[in-house]
């Protein structure tokens, strides 16, 4: 697929790139008009000026729309119904939304402990009979057995066929709390997402472009528009900047990716060519989710962060109040420090000095003190970034281990390099390299790096199998598939073949090209009753990790 377009629909700007045979041919940056996305996208295509749009093979889009929709509380009301069972009190954890608890309980192997109580369901009638409403139904251990969820859903559908219902067991990972909130968000953002899809398609159709459209996910993979679970599109921005770095690195490099923006800096980690995944799901505002995401740190420091004078010197604030002083703003910023030191060549030199001087008491406004101050500002910023890098490395090194083998083979520290992109990147390279102790490379096309990452992204695939041969059932975490196992009680080679079939099926369903599969060794747990093995629990996983389809030539 030689011709690819990447579009990053951000809150303020929409970026786009056109890539032909691994060469960035055109880039565009246009303002995002959230009321008229069709117009915004058409505008982006106009600016790209692709000679023949018919030759485009693939369009990939990353967007903060869903993220912002959640953070700005634009979701419709969702009725959250929980089969919460016994265990930890629900209010031990912070619930950002209301819920109703219903009776009915499963255990960890999907056995019914207590059936649901239909009389409770009767009481839901009055609230759910009217109009189209969004409903999320989630049971504790529903990822082991979704029966109660299915039963309630079909009861409610009979009551009101226009109900829009999401079931928790479609999110097949453990964690009832996160599964509940993920299911809630998933149904909550569906309207918003579908509206976005429609606008996207309208724009592309208007240009008579036939290329398929994919969306970038938080884990750095892409999926066709229609196959994506809407909530998976959150946080694709930081994932895109990590992917953009991948397009510029040796295939097995280990790299710290630093993307310095105006107000925030995103930091990611690439280990031997593979971006680090977070061991927990994404956190979005008050919602803890099961959404698989790259491990990234976003810290509130950037080129436009406010610098305020204090008795002891200065404070680097975690907010922005307009552009840098040297670019016509009212407040001194790290950008002014970079300008003063000659690390960047944009902005007015005189103004930069003036801005910095306002931090110093009048008697110290000399070149020596100004130089000292500017250097200290850069160092302060570098220190904040370095702390986030360290915390990310710790997350990687201190991943919990549940097997002897894992403990005896810990992660070894690798030789890292650093790739810096974003507006303030150029001014920070030297200081960052010194503090992090790594070689530093400046990212190419850093003003459109998210679009670049999106354009070059490939699919990811994860298939985690949980097989209980005694209960004769299997579960797939990522798809929520729950099926009957008809194979032997102690499968060995059989389970490998079964896994292959599952992966093929999943790849076909989502239109994913299978390549570079990474197989985790299976774990076999003999189930013993008395002194007899009566079955096995088998766990295993296959991954197609986040990556890019190739390198770009700068």
């Amino acid at each position, binding site marked *: 697929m030689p011709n690819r377009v990447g579009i990053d629909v951000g809150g303020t700007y929409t970026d786009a790139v056109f890539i032909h045979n691994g060469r960035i041919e055109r880039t565009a940056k246009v303002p995002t008009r959230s009321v008229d996305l069709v117009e915004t996208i058409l505008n982006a295509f106009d600016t790209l000026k692709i000679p023949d749009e018919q030759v485009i093979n693939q369009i990939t889009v990353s967007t903060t729309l869903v993220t912002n929709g959640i953070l700005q509380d634009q979701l419709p009301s969702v009725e959250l119904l929980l089969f919460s069972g016994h*265990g*930890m*009190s629900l209010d031990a954890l912070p619930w950002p939304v209301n819920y109703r608890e219903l009776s009915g309980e499963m255990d960890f192997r999907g056995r019914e402990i207590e059936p649901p109580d239909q009389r409770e369901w009767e009481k839901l009638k009055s609230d759910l009979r009217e109009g189209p409403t969004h409903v999320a139904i989630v049971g504790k251990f529903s990822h082991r057995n979704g029966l109660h969820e299915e039963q309630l859903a079909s009861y409610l559908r009979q009551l009101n066929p226009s109900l829009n219902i999401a079931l928790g067991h479609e999110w097949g990972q*453990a964690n009832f709390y996160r599964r509940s909130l993920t299911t809630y968000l998933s149904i909550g953002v569906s309207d918003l997402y579908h509206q976005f899809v429609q606008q996207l398609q309208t724009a592309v159709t208007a240009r008579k472009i036939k290329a398929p459209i994919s969306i970038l996910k938080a884990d750095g993979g892409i999926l066709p528009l229609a196959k994506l679970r809407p909530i998976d599109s959150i946080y694709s921005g930081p994932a895109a900047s990590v992917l953009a770095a991948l397009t510029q690195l040796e295939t097995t490099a280990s790299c710290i990716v630093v993307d310095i923006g105006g107000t925030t800096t995103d930091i990611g980690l690439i280990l031997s060519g593979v971006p680090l995944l977070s061991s927990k799901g994404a956190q979005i505002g008050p919602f803890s989710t099961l959404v698989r995401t790259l491990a990234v740190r976003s810290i509130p420091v950037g080129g436009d962060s406010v610098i305020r004078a204090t008795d002891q010197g200065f404070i680097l604030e975690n907010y922005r109040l307009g552009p840098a002083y040297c670019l016509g703003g009212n407040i001194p910023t790290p950008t002014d420090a970079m300008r003063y030191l000659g690390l960047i060549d944009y902005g007015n030199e005189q103004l930069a000095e003036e801005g910095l001087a306002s931090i110093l008491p009048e008697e110290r406004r000399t070149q020596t003190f100004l130089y000292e101050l500017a250097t200290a500002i850069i160092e302060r910023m570098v220190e904040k970034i370095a702390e986030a890098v360290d915390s990310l490395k710790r997350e990687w090194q201190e991943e919990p281990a549940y*097997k002897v083998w894992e403990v005896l083979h810990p992660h070894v520290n690798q030789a890292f390099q650093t790739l810096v992109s974003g507006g303030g990147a150029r001014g920070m390279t030297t200081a960052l390299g010194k503090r992090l102790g790594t070689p530093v490379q400046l990212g190419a096309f850093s003003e459109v790096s998210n679009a670049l990452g999106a354009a070059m992204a490939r699919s990811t695939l994860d298939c985690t199998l949980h097989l209980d041969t005694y209960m004769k059932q299997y579960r797939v975490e990522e798809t929520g598939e729950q099926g009957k196992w008809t194979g032997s009680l102690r499968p060995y080679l059989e389970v490998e073949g079964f896994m292959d079939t599952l992966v093929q099926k999943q790849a076909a369903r989502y239109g994913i090209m299978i390549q570079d599969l990474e197989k985790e060794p299976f774990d076999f*747990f003999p*189930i*013993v009753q008395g002194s*007899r*093995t009566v079955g096995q629990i088998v766990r295993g996983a296959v991954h197609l990790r986040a990556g890019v389809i190739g390198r770009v030539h700068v």
Partner: protein
Amino acid sequence: MKRTGILFFPAFDWSLGDFHPEREERLLYTQEQLFEEGVLDLPQIKQFSPCVASIHQVLRAQALLPNPRVHADTLDAHLIAAGSAILLGEARVRGDIANGFVLARPPGHHSGGTVWGNRGFCTINNEAVLVNHLRARLGVKKIAIIDTDVHHGDGTQDIFYHDPNVLFISLHQDGRTLYPGTGFVNEKGGPNAWEQTLNIPLPPGTGDEGYHYVLENWVLPRLQAFAPDLIINSAGQDNHFTDPLASMNLTAGGYGRITELLQPDLAVLEGGYSIEGALPYVNLAILLALAGEDYHHVREPQKLDRPVLSLATIKPYIEALKKQHQTIKPSFTIRKKAFFPTGNWIYSPHSVYYDTEGFQENRHDYVRQCNHCAGTVYIESDRSPHKSILVRIPFQACPECEQAGYDLWDHLLHHSDDCISGLLQNQLQDKFSVWHRKEGLTLF
């Protein structure tokens, strides 16, 4: 906020045998339960990742006989469990956490001062290694270990029997009805640590009420009198009414209450083999109680439908046991070998059966009576056809006891005709020398 550390190490790739209770599956459902409940998302819970204990750390508490090298191939999982206990213990003492739960396999409380192999599923005593590490490296002085496993914590008792700075209390099903068959009220500690060991054997059938009564009316007052710097709970879960190896009647909620009463700085998993019916719920209740969360909604699916000993039955039993305990006065045998340094040496012989591999160890223990310190210990350990020696110079040893230890060690090195090996466990200097007839001296 009260922070609770958890170190979850289920050793999913390790077992003592295909059908052995101590197998891969043991903490599988506990993992399912804890992860599904979302306990790791509780803001006050901090998860730690496991680490490996060193042989040096093990030798501080236990002699690996005939020498550590012989055990090398079988120790990995045990060293991780012990190392994990150390890691969380350090976090507690440094104040990073208010308390913690070492939810790790394999267990350790049947493993004693001399180790020839695995017994009662244990090879390394996780709590003992932890306790001596905290004393040697973090300056902790007085530590109490409360063993609430259904089996007598005979290994832990053995290691600290002469140690006045460690209070060891074990509550367990009466040794006349259960492995390992020890832990009676007359086992009250050595001459230098009299009353620092307390055994409370309970009748089969004891339930929540009875157990809590004993804690409130006997264990807690004793604990308070000792005023330890740190409390460690050897948290075995085999008192649960579904346990296949024992006959007690505790519930998951009952375990939550035990934790609430003891307020341990660290809970360390020991036994518990009802892996589906009890462990997921008991572990959850303990963790919630440590984290200061409500554990009353934790309920095992199976109903308790067998007779539980009533409080009315337990109370008089306990009162009688207490009386019996009080009447037992110290009575020791003074005996020494010709080459022993000066002082009164108290002799006690006993034998230890290694059920996992099926052999016997015969021990002849001598401790130097001392008014100033825990007293130097000299142990001859016979595991036919071999004989090994342990010489222990205790923490805060007085000069005389320290010298006595060196003299005994010197004697072994020069007149070792019938011994294959020995360990100089110099807790005072934190130095551990292993001598082996064929391999010579090694310092750990």
